[in-house]
């Protein structure tokens, strides 16, 4: 009886339910066999055989929609897009109720459009998105991607109209409003003309700063166009001014400072590196008086082993990777130079992160002083295996032995205390700097509160939606998505001051540098932001140090805020006028996401300065690791000479001290890595000086 009931039930359901009509159409056994065989092959990515099976289905039963459907799907998977779409349209002609097929057509247009966009083929991308708009004129994805493509094509009026339509249809996503606001700026319209319902309500307080920057990359000839990654400054050709090395994908470039402009001398300098890389760090590793280069390469994108270029003098280089044994094959992001054993020869700590091709164990190359290095990371206890993207040296506990801070993406960071015997001890917990609650991307050291001890900054890379949500909230909406500013309490232990310092807001930080931009005597922070999505356009950020333990966003006031994907930003006084200029390598993750690198020249802030270059004698020649304290009237500043941090970039090795209104420096104290202490007294402001270990003092330009 129960069986009969079941049978009746099944028959009634079969008869009544409209959804399963498709599978319950009578089909021949041969069709069914071929159909299932095709599905099985499709799932195993055996497209050719699947195509054959479904072709047979279509021949056996030309009125069966599902044959065309799956054949269309196979064609799409084979990349035969137009044929696939046509078959799907045939499917819909046979069964207009198949919503899944309509969605697949839409997804196909969106997917192909995005692929074209990522490859930088903007016209075909636009065509695909236009077709998507025909299928789904009000859809978020169609409107979003069509408008993003218009932005890439610099068709701002079209972007404006699409974004208007998108925000009206989809009020929630902040990204649409943000982009609409950006378009208004480009079109030189007042954002306030937008009704509240369309406007992005930016709650980030904007501060003032007493000067501006101008973008002069093209004018100076340094607007390299590729996937820009990092930059490094040094007087490579020893002519008294700072030259620029820039790495990206696909290559390394060397721009010689010729005064008015920079000249691309890459080939003549012997710096051809066709696959490019991620980071470029400069130091005089052989103590011969000229600046050498170390390029970290594999990162996320591959590129090969790291390369060490030795400067033969006057800016001509030789590849010494093999002899030096520094060709780290790991997934290297950043490297930093430091003399960990204080033998006067600079060593390298390499952050090997989470790349696709190489190992992800950090290496410490000890410089043997004869041009060769040896990896001592394991013996030294710093062979962290994980996702280190950035690292920095610094003497955090004031014992004159340089310690290491490793910034690990999605993992706790690590502070390695140098024990002075060739080994390091993990002091993370004791120092309180694990930063377990954030996804750290970059790190650098600075003394932001002028108390004479090194503080730590950890930049966080956050998703776009979180970044925008925080802009609207004016603060961090998620504990995990914010940078961290650790204040050194003077004994090598730290406290998290991010919130108090006004920095608790999510950013897509991919690089950053400290520098006293306005020469007021308090070090500011510049952060290069972005992300790999083609639609992402978040501005870089300049945080001005207000001298009271807090920072304020002064990006707009300073004329900064590049909207691209900034990596490896650096400060240097390239024109020797006493203020810091800013170089920004810009590049995304996709072949189409390429931008021109930007160069922001400071037009001056009207304050006084003192710029110091150091030359070690007993210590390493660059004085890397030297601790410099500058006293001027009521102002005391502290800095350490460093090369390689953040995203594998190097500011100029000169130390720039802003003095505000002060015209003299009372005292400069240098504690050299050798242990020697030199004191220089009563120095005029507004000059560039070379201070040699042992007490000699020379003009440096």
């Amino acid at each position, binding site marked *: 009886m129960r069986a009969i009931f*079941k049978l009746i*039930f*099944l028959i*009634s*359901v*079969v008869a*009544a*339910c409209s*959804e*399963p009509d498709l*599978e*319950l159409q009578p*089909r021949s056994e041969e069709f*069914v066999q071929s*159909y*299932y065989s095709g*599905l*099985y092959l*499709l*799932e*195993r*990515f*055996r497209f*050719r*055989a699947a195509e*054959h099976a479904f*072709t*047979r289905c279509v*021949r056996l039963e030309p009125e069966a929609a*599902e044959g065309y*459907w*799956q054949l269309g*799907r196979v064609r*799409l*998977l084979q990349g035969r897009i*137009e*044929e696939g779409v*046509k078959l799907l349209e045939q499917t819909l002609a046979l069964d207009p109720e198949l*919503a*899944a097929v309509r*969605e*697949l057509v839409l*997804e*196909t247009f969106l*997917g192909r459009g995005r*692929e074209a966009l990522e*490859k930088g083929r903007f016209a075909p991308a636009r065509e695909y998105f236009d077709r998507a708009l025909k299928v789904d004129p009000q859809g978020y994805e169609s409107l979003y991607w069509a408008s993003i493509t218009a932005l890439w094509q610099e068709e701002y009026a079209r972007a404006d109209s699409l974004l208007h339509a998108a925000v009206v249809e989809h009020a929630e996503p902040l990204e649409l409003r943000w982009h609409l606001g950006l378009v208004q700026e480009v079109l030189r319209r007042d954002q306030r003309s937008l009704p509240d319902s369309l406007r992005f309500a930016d709650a980030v307080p904007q501060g003032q700063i007493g000067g501006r920057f101008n973008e002069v990359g093209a004018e100076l000839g340094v607007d390299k166009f590729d996937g820009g990654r990092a930059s490094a400054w040094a007087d490579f050709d020893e002519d008294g001014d700072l030259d620029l090395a820039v790495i990206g994908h696909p290559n390394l470039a060397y721009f010689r400072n010729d005064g008015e402009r920079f000249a691309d001398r890459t080939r003549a300098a012997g710096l051809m590196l066709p696959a490019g890389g991620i980071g470029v760090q400069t130091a005089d590793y052989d103590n011969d008086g000229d600046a050498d280069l170390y390029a970290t390469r594999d990162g*996320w*994108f*591959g590129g090969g082993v790291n390369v060490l270029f030795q400067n033969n003098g006057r800016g001509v280089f030789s590849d010494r990777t093999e002899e030096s044994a520094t060709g780290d094959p790991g997934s290297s992001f950043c490297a930093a130079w430091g003399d960990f054993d204080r033998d006067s020869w600079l060593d390298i700590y390499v952050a090997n992160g989470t790349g*696709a*091709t190489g190992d992800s164990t950090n290496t410490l190359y000890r410089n043997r002083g004869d041009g060769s290095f040896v990896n001592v990371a394991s013996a030294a206890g710093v062979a962290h295996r994980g996702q280190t993207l950035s690292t920095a040296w610094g003497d955090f506990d004031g014992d004159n032995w340089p310690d290491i801070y490793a910034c690990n993406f999605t993992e706790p960071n690590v502070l390695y205390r140098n024990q002075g015997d060739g080994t390091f001890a993990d002091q993370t917990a004791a120092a309180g700097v694990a930063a377990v609650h954030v996804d750290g991307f970059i790190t650098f050291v600075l003394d932001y509160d002028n108390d004479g001890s090194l503080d730590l900054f950890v930049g966080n890379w956050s998703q776009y939606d979180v970044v925008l949500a925080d802009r609207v909230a004016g603060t961090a909406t998620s504990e995990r998505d914010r940078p961290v500013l650790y204040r050194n309490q003077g004994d090598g232990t730290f406290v998290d001051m991010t919130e108090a310092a006004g920095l608790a807001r999510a950013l897509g930080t991919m690089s950053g540098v400290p520098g006293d931009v306005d020469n007021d005597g308090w070090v500011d922070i510049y952060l290069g932001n972005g992300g790999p999505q083609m639609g992402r356009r978040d501005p870089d950020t300049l945080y001005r140090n207000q001298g009271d333990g807090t920072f304020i966003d002064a990006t707009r006031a300073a004329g900064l805020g590049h909207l691209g994907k900034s990596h490896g930003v650096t400060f240097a006084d390239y024109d020797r006028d006493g203020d810091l200029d800013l170089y920004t390598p810009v590049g995304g993750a996709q*072949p189409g996401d390429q931008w021109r690198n930007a160069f922001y020249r400071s037009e001056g802030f009207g304050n006084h300065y003192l710029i110091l270059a150091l030359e070690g004698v007993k210590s390493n020649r660059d004085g890397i690791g030297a601790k410099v304290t500058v006293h001027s009237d009521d102002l005391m500043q502290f800095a350490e000479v460093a090369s390689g941090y953040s995203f594998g970039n190097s500011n100029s090795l000169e130390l720039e001290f802003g003095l505000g209104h002060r015209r003299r420096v009372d005292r400069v104290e240098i504690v050299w890595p050798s242990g020697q202490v030199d004191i220089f007294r009563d120095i005029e402001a507004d000059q560039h000086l070379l201070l040699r270990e042992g007490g000699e003092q020379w003009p440096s330009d």
Partner: protein
Amino acid sequence: MAQRLMALILFVAGCTAEVDAPTAHRQAQELVGGRTLRSLSRTELAQAQRLEAQALALDPELSEAAYALAALCVARGAYEEATALYRELVEADPDDARAYAELGFSLAAQGRYSGALRAGQDAMRRGEKSARAYTRIGHVYQALGHLEENLRSARASYNASLQLEPGQAEVLYQLARVEARLGQGEVARKRMEEALAAAPEDTGIRVDLISLYRDESQLQLARSTIAQGLKLGDEVAVLHREMGRILWEEGDGTRALSHFEDALVADPDLHQVYRYMGLVHSVEGRLAEALAAFAVLAEREPDNAAVRVNIGIIHSRMGDLAAAEEAFKMAMALGGTEGDAMLKLGGLYVHQRRLRLAARVFKEATASFPKHAELFASLGDTYRLLGILCAAQQAGEQGVSLEPEKALWRFHLASTYERLDETLAWAEWRRYLALAVTDSQEVRCLDHARERFQLLAKQE
């Protein structure tokens, strides 16, 4: 999609209020009876699906019913519906690695690779690190292989799968394909050989191995691989087709045709064989037979533009220029063949001395296919014939810049320069001669070129 499923679930629930969820689920499982889902009849699949839907409607927390229902959707190719169910499972338990893994699989089968990749990675983060999981994520990386880094990730994923379960033919096969795409021909061949050794009955692997042998001009190995396959007797049609292609490439049209015919006997649906048969007949001058073979293919594949081009070529060789024109136009209407249909139509017009029409076709074609050197060269030559020399020069130079090593384009360009600038012409003839002496197709033009070069040299 989720709404449709929910409607079905609610409907079924309404129909069946007196059966409880575990019972409905159990009934579905009894119906399946441990069989592979695709061995069920379509009616059985539908019945099982309804029972699972019923179970789920009665107890939305019964995740086993949701999994079973999703698997049934996958079994009948309704990947979108399966995706909706897996998404529900993920939302219900964000730590459920299996749900992420299956979600990734259903997305990949739809070609939604970015989502599939995210889901696959989410599954792995939650501990799903089986050989199957690595294989599936390898597939996804492979599908995203337009970026080389993804191909490298595919390689790593397949290798990880093989480390966990060595000797999987399917994985070795996919790994071989990835190696080939990465330009590692020798490694690809080795992996493919290993794959075939592990699954000698797999004709798909065999055919791809044959293709690798052919790429390396290892025709003897290709033949023996085919012969082994024919002995095994599985999917012989494809193997006959491959043997036919090799024989044809070696110039043995008669035996090639015999294999093509055997292929069609074994599988009448192997339509592409007609194309090869048509080409063999065409090369050997049997135009009527060639036309017949192409016509069969055109009938079987009405959207196939390439075969319309073949038909047009045969018509033009038979002197039926009107039919040829119609065929080329049909090919263009069907979406063309990367410019070849337009090239042939333009060529036909040139042959008929309808030069303005020819120039118009070539011009349109170059706009659509800006990397097609022959189109530019042909456009330049047509402009030359029309006496529009600046345009001829521009188009000709573009053709040469796109394919600097192709002698014929230089021949056309030199002919244009002859009427513009003798110095340029002399230099271009010299470049042409340097290339043409080793190009067997240029034998007929060489004398003319030498003559012009020497004459211009004397005038210099």
